[in-house]
């Protein structure tokens, strides 16, 4: 059974069909790309999958359980984590605290334990510190653990956002334009990181990207979206040769 199965997913804003009859099937441990021209509805698909929008019709299932139409926080608890096109970090918290916030539902203790600083507090906090530092090390951010998130350079902020998403222990990771604003070197490094995450955490990744070098470099399969509808889907190299896709991207 596919890890993520989306069938006939649509959302209409008034007369505008932002996403129409969208379908997608991602197997476990796959690296999947979602591409399309500006305004095609890629981020809207992400918002539908994470409960930011409720679909007009259709459904998305993760491991057989319906995730579409649920609350964002609940979708995350079911195993979907995401990053954002315009970075959304907790700017006034330290890098370490950003990741520890991601661990919120992984390591729990009651409010009373926190207020009275019972022994459980120190134990769980140390556990969280350890987990968070391990994650930061993966992204080479461990030396900046005490820096405020807003003081990080752009590339590292992107990485921190991925680290925070991974801290929620997801089954499926959604990356919204992870390479936006990165130079070719940084993009290359990011490609290695994404592959590494997939292998180390046994993760399934769905990403939106405009950088064709990154898409053709790491995505095994892709879906092309145009005007809210699926234009083509399948193996990356095949789809990119499709004349319709070329037309949508480059014009006649």
């Amino acid at each position, binding site marked *: 059974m596919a890890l993520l199965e989306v069938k006939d997913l649509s959302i209409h804003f008034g007369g505008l069909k932002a996403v129409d009859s969208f379908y997608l099937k991602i197997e476990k441990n796959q690296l999947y790309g979602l591409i399309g021209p500006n305004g095609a509805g890629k981020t809207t698909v992400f918002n539908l999958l994470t409960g930011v929008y409720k679909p007009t019709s259709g459904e998305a299932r993760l491991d057989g359980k319906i995730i579409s139409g649920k609350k964002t926080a609940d979708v995350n608890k079911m195993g979907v984590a995401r990053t954002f096109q315009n970075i959304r970090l907790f700017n006034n918290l330290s890098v370490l605290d950003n990741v520890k916030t991601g661990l919120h539902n992984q390591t729990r203790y009651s409010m009373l334990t926190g207020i009275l600083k019972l022994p459980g507090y120190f134990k769980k906090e140390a556990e969280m510190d350890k987990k968070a530092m391990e994650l930061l090390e993966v992204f080479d951010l461990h030396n900046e653990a*005490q820096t405020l998130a807003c*003081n990080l350079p752009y590339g590292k902020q992107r990485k921190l956002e991925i680290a*925070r998403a991974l801290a929620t222990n997801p089954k499926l990771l959604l990356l919204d334009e992870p390479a936006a604003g990165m130079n070719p070197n940084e993009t290359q490094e990011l490609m290695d990181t994404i592959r590494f995450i997939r292998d180390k955490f046994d993760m399934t990744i769905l990403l939106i990207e405009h950088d064709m070098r990154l898409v053709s470099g790491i995505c095994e399969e892709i879906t092309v979206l145009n005007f809210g509808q699926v234009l083509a889907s399948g193996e990356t190299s095949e789809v990119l040769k499709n004349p319709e896709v070329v037309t949508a991207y480059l014009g006649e």
Partner: protein
Amino acid sequence: MKQGSRLSNMKKSTKTNGITYLMLLVAFIVVQIFTATDSMTNLIKGLLVPACIYIIMAVSLNLTVGILGELSLGHAGFMCVGAFASSFFSVCMRDVITSEWVRFPLAIIIGGVVAALFGFIVGIPVLRLRGDYLAIVTLAFGEIIKNLMNVLYVGLDSNGFHFSMKGTTDLGMEADGKVIVKGALGITGTPRDSTFVVAFILVVITVFVVLNVVNSRQGRAIMSIRDNRIAAESIGINITKYKLMAFVVSAFFAGIAGVLYSHNIATLTATTNNFGYNMSIMVLVYVVLGGIGNIRGSIIAAVILTVLPELLREFSDYRMLVYSLVLIFMMLFSSSPAMVNFREKLSLKGKNKSKKEKGVA
């Protein structure tokens, strides 16, 4: 390095919190010395409990404004609820529970819990709003509570409690009845149980709870909502729950401040100056001047701004002029880069900190 930075994280919060507790302890000892040597004027003596009340108000409001990041203008409303609930209890129980060591702690708990309950009831609809809208609704709540207290009549006789919104005659009580809450005349005869020591203990408890909440898993969730609501939701944080949690804790301590207030005066009435808009704004001024999100700053600002106007009473003509000048200078200088650097130097003095960490602090 890994181990080191992890330790420094724990140390940093423990250290800054330690300074706050130390500051409170020193203040307490100084006051005790002055009391023992009897070198305090009556004016200052009379300000001790109010200063504690305002510290509790400022610190608890800072939880809503600074940590949760929502502007609430109805904090005095919760203080009002706590004051009336506890005063009502104390007056009723005055003859039943004669020991103030039992009655007053119970009154404190009742005042806090009733205020927290109001925080919960008000919070559910209000916290759906954000920014200016939340400010306006909380402002209205504060005024409604104050006005409600002005028309509330409660009497007690052999048949139990009687409530009315019209007047004492409308209560329809037996001859042995006693009116406890007399509308605009308020509650009289509340035992004056508030002492500086009790007030100080409550200040320490408030600061302790608020600081520990900030440094806990729940506090991180609350701050993440402040920094980025959408991202907080995306990592599985229940926004409503944690907003409500911060709001209710904040209301609880405002209620406790109300208990101290009502047990420090003979006649409790709800006026604009004590429970109205003026009070809410004044507490907000403490929070803003002390630094939004800065608990220690709230304490210092509350003390200075409580004591200063009274000390300036001799120069009554120029009192408000100096007060406003102090406000302006505090605003200008407390967060100016030079002052921030100076404070950083002070806190890092004698410590071999790496440059990187200095940039963070």
